[in-house]
């Protein structure tokens, strides 16, 4: 029966599978814990999700362009340590642009190696993960960095401020998500990223500057990391050298949950947002229910596989794979 349903509702489900799963999930959780669906909790989870979320936006674009970015975690450590450290040395007015530029440089290195030299993105960004982690440690000498005057700096606005009662990180996240959604769906750049990810050879045969497009996707990813670092640095008002460790996997999991194909060429920013929120709500919901933190890993396992499975199944019109 499920198969028949899937066949009938195939196209719609394929588009909205994640949304349906997300809503079901929220309903189940709100029955399990009465705290779950309170405005306070929802806003707090939303705010917590913004760091992974902003990074996931950039990575979604990289993945649509047919590549991977595993270096975002280290890059986040780098950017956060840099902005927090420079905050007290040269003031936030300079620290923020310097950090953004430095992070973009790292993105440019990724973009150069992958877009222009055409090296494999998985391995290059894995290597960069290690290199950047080392750079952070060398830069900071392995010491934590902190902002001395936490209550007075305007830098606090990124992580802790609010506009009309809505936390600034949420505004940043939603704003960027809408911006990138529009960029990817309505502009020539977005179309070209889809084309390069979908078929790089045909793109070159169509006169698309493939190298430049891939390069730009990595710059965008780095820019997102820089924004995430502003939120993180401002929220914590300090940083450890390994603060971003493991983020790359959370980000990737969110992108995958959003149904973006790792083969490139297809994916959606808005569905990545759903993926991000879903992961954040799983984490939050299970803790609210008093489960030990590691059950969240087990649930995430199941959710990722079931969600992606249904997505794939709806696209091919049958539940089980045709592999013999």
């Amino acid at each position, binding site marked *: 029966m499920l198969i028949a349903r899937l*066949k009938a509702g195939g196209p719609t489900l394929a588009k909205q599978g994640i949304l349906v799963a997300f809503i079901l999930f929220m309903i189940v959780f709100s029955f399990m814990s009465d705290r779950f669906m309170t405005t306070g909790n929802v806003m707090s989870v939303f705010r917590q999700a913004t760091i992974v979320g902003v990074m996931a936006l950039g990575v979604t674009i990289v993945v649509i362009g047919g590549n991977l970015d595993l270096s975002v975690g280290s890059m986040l450590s780098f950017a956060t340590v840099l902005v927090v450290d420079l905050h007290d040395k040269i003031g936030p007015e300079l620290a923020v642009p310097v950090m953004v530029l430095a992070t973009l440089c790292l993105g440019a290195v990724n973009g150069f190696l992958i877009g222009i030299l055409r090296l494999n993105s998985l391995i290059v960004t894995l290597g960069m993960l290690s290199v950047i982690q080392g750079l952070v440690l060398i830069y900071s000498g392995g010491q934590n960095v902190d902002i001395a005057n936490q209550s007075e700096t305007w830098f606090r606005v990124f992580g802790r401020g609010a506009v009309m009662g809505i936390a600034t990180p949420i505004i940043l996240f939603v704003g960027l998500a809408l911006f990138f959604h529009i960029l990817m769906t309505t502009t020539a750049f977005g179309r070209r990223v889809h084309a390069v990810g979908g*078929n790089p050879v045909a793109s070159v045969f*169509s006169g698309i500057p493939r190298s430049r497009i891939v390069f730009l996707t990595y710059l965008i990813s780095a820019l997102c990391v820089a924004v995430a670092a502003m939120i993180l640095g401002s929220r914590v008002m300090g940083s450890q050298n390994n603060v971003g460790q493991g983020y790359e996997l959370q980000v990737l999991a969110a992108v995958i949950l959003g149904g973006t194909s790792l083969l490139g060429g297809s994916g959606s920013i808005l569905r990545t947002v759903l993926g991000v929120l879903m992961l954040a709500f799983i984490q939050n919901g299970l803790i609210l229910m008093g489960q030990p933190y590691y059950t969240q890993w087990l649930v995430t396992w199941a959710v990722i596989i079931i969600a992606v499975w249904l997505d794939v199944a709806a696209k091919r019109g049958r539940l089980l794979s045709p592999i013999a």
Partner: protein
Amino acid sequence: MTMPHTPALQLQGIVKTFPGVRALDGVDFDVRPGEVHALLGENGAGKSTLMKVLAGMYQPNEGRILIGGKTVAIRNPIEAKAQGVVLIHQELSLVPEMSAAENIYLGELPRKSLGRVDWKTLFAKSNAILERLKCRFRAEVTVANLSIANQQMVEIARALTVDARVVVFDEPTASLTDAEKVVLFDIITDLKAQGVGIVYISHRMDEIFTLSDRITVLRDGQYRGTLDTAATNEDEVTRLMIGRSLDLTRHEAPPEFGKTMLEVRNLSCAPLFRDISFSVRAGEVVGFYGLVGAGRTEIAETLFGLRSPSAGEILVDGQPVQITNPRAAIALGISLVPENRKEQGLVLHMNCRDNMTLPQVQDLTSGPFISNGAEIAIFDQYRDRLAIKTPSWKQSASVLSGGNQQKIVIGKWLSMQPRVLIVDEPTRGIDVGSKSEIHTLLRELAAQGYAVIVISSEMPEVLRVSDRIVAMYNGRIMREFDISEVTEDNLVQAISGIKAEEVA
């Protein structure tokens, strides 16, 4: 029709559906021992699907398969082989990093104890088969190092690994040279003499009429009838296939051409081609004819900025130019419809409209956004002009038939308003109906003042569309013909490497 033999194989009332498509709708088909039975139909008529049902790759929704008069269930390719049914695939189905021998016996490698491969037997048997096919390479070589034609021979060699009852060839000649075709036809004759039933699928009428004994025609997944080859002609078959006759006359050369749009002087790209000089005028179609591997595609790629020439110069509108990438070529008004539409021409899962406007999408903007209206206008214009069959622009290019895919690619480049249009193998694997449409289209384009270069390995095609023909052999131009002076004989001589002077 009288039935002298009991059929080796019968398909009855086969129905096969895919989501949204009824690919086969009650098809009947039979093959007798020792006959060549041709299967014809437009692109997407269901020929390959029918054969995949036969080979156990698809399970039919309805209908049955009889072998030697008994109903059988064929659940997978191994079972089909066990029943003596072998399918040579339309698309190459090889593993590039493995040896020819392993590819020939893929899925059925001979075993020794402990699951070890019996290399000795494997190579001995494979080499024997390759010799029978008169191949000049050994079974030990890696397939990736073989030419496309030789890869095709490896594919064909698979048919000879078992005592076949029925062998299906699905468009085997698409990438074979003439010499290899002769070998293939010998093999087919040989098999036939041994009483094997052959199913032969091709879009080339000449082959069908030389080889086959009977012809079955499919249309839109439906059975349209079976004819005795001896008792029919191309026109009848064509009408059964596409519902109308084709105009197969050569065109009349227009009285005069415009100015020279593109000139190439002593262009070389070692080791692919050397010393290439030719020119194309507005309103003219120049055909490049040669065997596969003659280097024609490489010339087109060089003109389009995809390869760097080692010597020589290119002049557009009389001005020498450097073309370092496709964008530069596009800016100079050069367009290339590439050889391989799936890999080079289309982003398959993108929709038709987006594919068509891809090279110019950054110019179709209003403000920062792509102008939807402008895109749809372009799509509508070329859909109508090229008679592309698709329900809407939103259809993903992957589900279109080969011919319609090709038209999308042509439309994409026409919409760029080029001055020089290069088309490489525009009708490879395309049915006769679409082929003739594309030929007519190329002539019309020339009449409108485009300079057109057509690269083709099919003689009838170059003869039909060209005003001039450049014959190539092994990376060199052997001779240039005016359409009025060309004959099939001197063309064949030219592309086989016989010097122009000797011919003249």
